[in-house]
């Protein structure tokens, strides 16, 4: 009897649904109690939300790198977080040089553009070299082989940065022009200028990427390779080149994301890319890995949940110092998504319709 029942209904499904249901109840209770206690004012929630949006757009930019590579190679580029670190950490040295020369005070827009260009260049280089040395020879190997390589590459890069640039935490110079709240159209908006800039720049980058993938010839080749490598090769597309392009594009996005991250959080170090990398991966999975708009959406969603979550959910449960657990929220979200909807919100693949 029992065996028959077990065969029909997978016990693990039941357990998983129970866990999920339990977590939902916990989230509900926490939210209700926080809101009922009225501990935070509405303006505080708005601040949390905008901060979440800003950090979410950084996650989204990094997530694009995961998604693009996954869409084409079906591998998780575990070292993508380190591609991100490489750009922003290298640009740091130019940033302090520019600050010392007073360049940032005089031409902050130009300075920012230069920093982004440097970070993009370095990130692209790291991504391309990584592909050439660590991933290309393993194409066609079983899935876990490139994954283990990627993990190795991730640690190798982290400790390379540490070895070459030093292990200390470095603070990015201030951009005085970006201090305070945003003043535009004759009034003050309830948003910090830095955050507004981060959101705008990443939105522009995402629009650019969307245009690139959809409208340009290179983007078309990319989608063709994602669809079917052999067929694309027969159509005269140089698959290796497209793959390098993809890594470069992901690297460029990560480079910009690095500078935006530095604007938001100010501090850089050799290991800074690891946690944002995992979170961006979460975002990519959340939106449906391999799916470009999905990665953007997932990034924003994760950023907001992470910003609101600790205060909204955990505070209500009476957990002290809930902010410490914000990374745990992101990881829990990742685990939940992978359990309940592994294809993500918008579904997988960089295919014709969804890309």
């Amino acid at each position, binding site marked *: 009897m029992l065996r028959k029942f077990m065969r029909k209904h997978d016990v693990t499904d039941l357990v998983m649904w129970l866990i999920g249901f339990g977590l939902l109840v916990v989230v509900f209770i926490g939210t209700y109690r926080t809101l009922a206690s009225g501990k935070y004012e509405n303006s505080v929630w708005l601040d949390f939300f905008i901060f979440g949006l800003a950090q979410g757009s950084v996650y989204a930019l990094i997530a694009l790198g995961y998604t693009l590579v996954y869409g084409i190679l079906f591998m998780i580029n575990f070292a993508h977080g380190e591609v991100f670190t490489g750009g922003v950490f290298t640009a740091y040295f130019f940033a302090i040089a520019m600050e010392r020369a007073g360049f940032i005070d005089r031409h902050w827009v130009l300075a920012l553009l230069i920093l982004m260009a440097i970070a993009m260049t370095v990130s692209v280089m790291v991504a391309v070299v990584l592909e050439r040395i660590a991933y290309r020879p393993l194409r066609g190997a079983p899935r876990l082989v490139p994954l283990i390589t990627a993990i190795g590459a991730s640690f190798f890069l982290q400790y390379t940065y540490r070895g070459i640039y030093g292990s200390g935490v470095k603070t990015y110079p201030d951009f005085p022009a970006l201090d305070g709240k945003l003043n535009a159209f004759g009034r003050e908006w309830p948003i910090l200028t830095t955050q507004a800039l981060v959101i705008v720049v990443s939105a522009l980058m995402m629009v650019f990427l969307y245009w690139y993938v959809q409208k340009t010839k290179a983007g078309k080749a990319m989608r063709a390779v994602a669809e079917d490598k052999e067929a694309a090769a027969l159509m005269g597309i140089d698959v290796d080149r497209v793959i390098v392009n993809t890594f470069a594009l992901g690297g460029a996005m990560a480079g910009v994301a690095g500078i935006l991250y530095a604007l938001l959080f100010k501090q850089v170090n050799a290991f800074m890319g690891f946690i944002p990398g995992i979170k961006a991966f979460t975002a990519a999975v959340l939106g449906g890995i391999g799916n470009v708009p999905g990665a953007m959406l997932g990034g924003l969603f994760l950023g907001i949940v992470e910003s609101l979550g600790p205060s909204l959910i955990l505070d209500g449960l009476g957990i002290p110092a809930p902010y410490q657990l914000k990374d745990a929220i992101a990881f829990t979200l990742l*685990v939940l998504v992978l359990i309940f909807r592994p294809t993500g919100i918008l579904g997988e693949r960089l295919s014709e319709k969804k890309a």
Partner: protein
Amino acid sequence: MDKEIKFSWQDIIKYGVIGGIVALYVVLIGMVVTFKERYIIAETVNLGQIALFSPTFILAYFAANNARKLKSLIYAIVVGALVGAIVGVFVAALLVLASHVNMREVFLNVSPELLKILHFGQESLKGASLVIVGLNLIVGLVGGLFALAPRRWSNALLVGAALVTLMGILQELMSITFGTKDWYKPLGEFIYAKKGLSWGGTILFFVLGMLFSLWRSSPGLHPGARVAKLPPKQQQGVRIVSFLLGLAILVWLPKFLGSYPSEILTTVGIYVIMGLGLNIVVGFAGLLDLGYVAFFAIGAYTVGILTTTGKLATVGWNFWMALPVAIFLATMAGVILGIPVLKMRGDYLAIVTLGFGEIIRILVLSDWLKPYIGGAQGILQIPKPEILGYEFKGPQQIYYLVLIGILLVGYIAWRLRDARVGRAWKAMREDEDVAEAMGIHLVSTKLMAFATGAAFAGLSGAIFAAKLGSIFPHSFNLIVSINVLSLIIVGGIGSLPGVVVGALILVGLPELLREFADYRMLFYGALLVAMMLVKPEGFVPEKTHARELREQPLEPEVAPEAPAREAL
């Protein structure tokens, strides 16, 4: 000359530039300065120089690799020397640049000390540059010549050089361990100079290493081959005798070695137990688990909480009462964490388990659970285990605890490997769908793998807590998981002796080389990449793989790689 193998400037420049970049990397990452005090041979050759010149040697060797086919001495010499010279130009350029510009602000390791080393005793910059190029040229030339030697002999030379390096590194440990013993004094005086091996010692170990390698590689003399010729009954006898002999040596070892080496061995042993556990999950069942440290932490914290007599004291049990609880809880955690990830495919599984590991670490560090498990301050005053009045107080005693643990866990892993469940694991590793079609119940088989692996980690964690007497959350970060993964991959995925070899190399050696601590994770990362690219089956491949390799002599290039990759 053959059409395909020709003297190509392009190749020489390519290899030279790669070598130059690698050499610059070695310099910028600081190895030359860090290892400068580690003398290998008689105060002349130190490990930093070896690190500086090995890229030259290796790339010259690869560039001149065609020489073996060509049997052309001139080819080998010219190509090797040219590649060496190009590498030298890169390093010299760095020296010149660094002498004029202050690079220190960006590249931390371009210190005055480094410049002094790179001057090689020369006063002028010009002289120093010439010396650098010249030395690299000579090293490259030797590398080129090396490519000419028959493979058996070049392997022997390499083993000789490796043994010399190893003995040089071991100097300090030897004098700490045996310095007071009477029999060691004349021996030590002969082998070692003040810093590094003496010339006599160098020659001795070089020749020993070469002889050993030649002996291993000659088919008639290899011990394994000779044993295989014996009748089965005698073979078993040989195996039992060698096992008992090995065991006796292991039991006697801490008494012979003293406290510090025993400490290292204990650490290695703890990793061996973890490795045997992860080997079941990754190696046998093919489930890449990056959150493995969570089970280690659960084992350690259970013992810590249940036995501590410090501030967080609860029930104050002794170690032996807490041990089964620790293993049980770790096993349960393995099952609980195993259930949600059952249906995930390989690469997602890795990230989710990593997420689990991080969640556990964050929870341990949080203020929320601090009253129960101590937060960042950890748990102190964990009493040492005691049995019938014998206290496992120092490393020399804990060693036996670890040894018993390894024997137990190793025996279980060995028996499981060929048991029904072990074969089910391997079938699942090769192809889940086929395995299911053959009647393997995937859910219970996977959970069994997670549970067994977690139980081993729990045991390891429990011993770890008892060994240190205090535990802190930072001992349980992701790096531990990566260490364990690296050691089973280096040893050979799915191979039991491979775990021991991997742990000795990856955990034991770095303990001997204290300066190495900074480069440890760098090295592991590079090793993971290199192993996957070059030797995915590991250094001690699983027996079935080895058998498959011997049966397919026709495809020596493909055979070593294909089975191991499929195995993953």
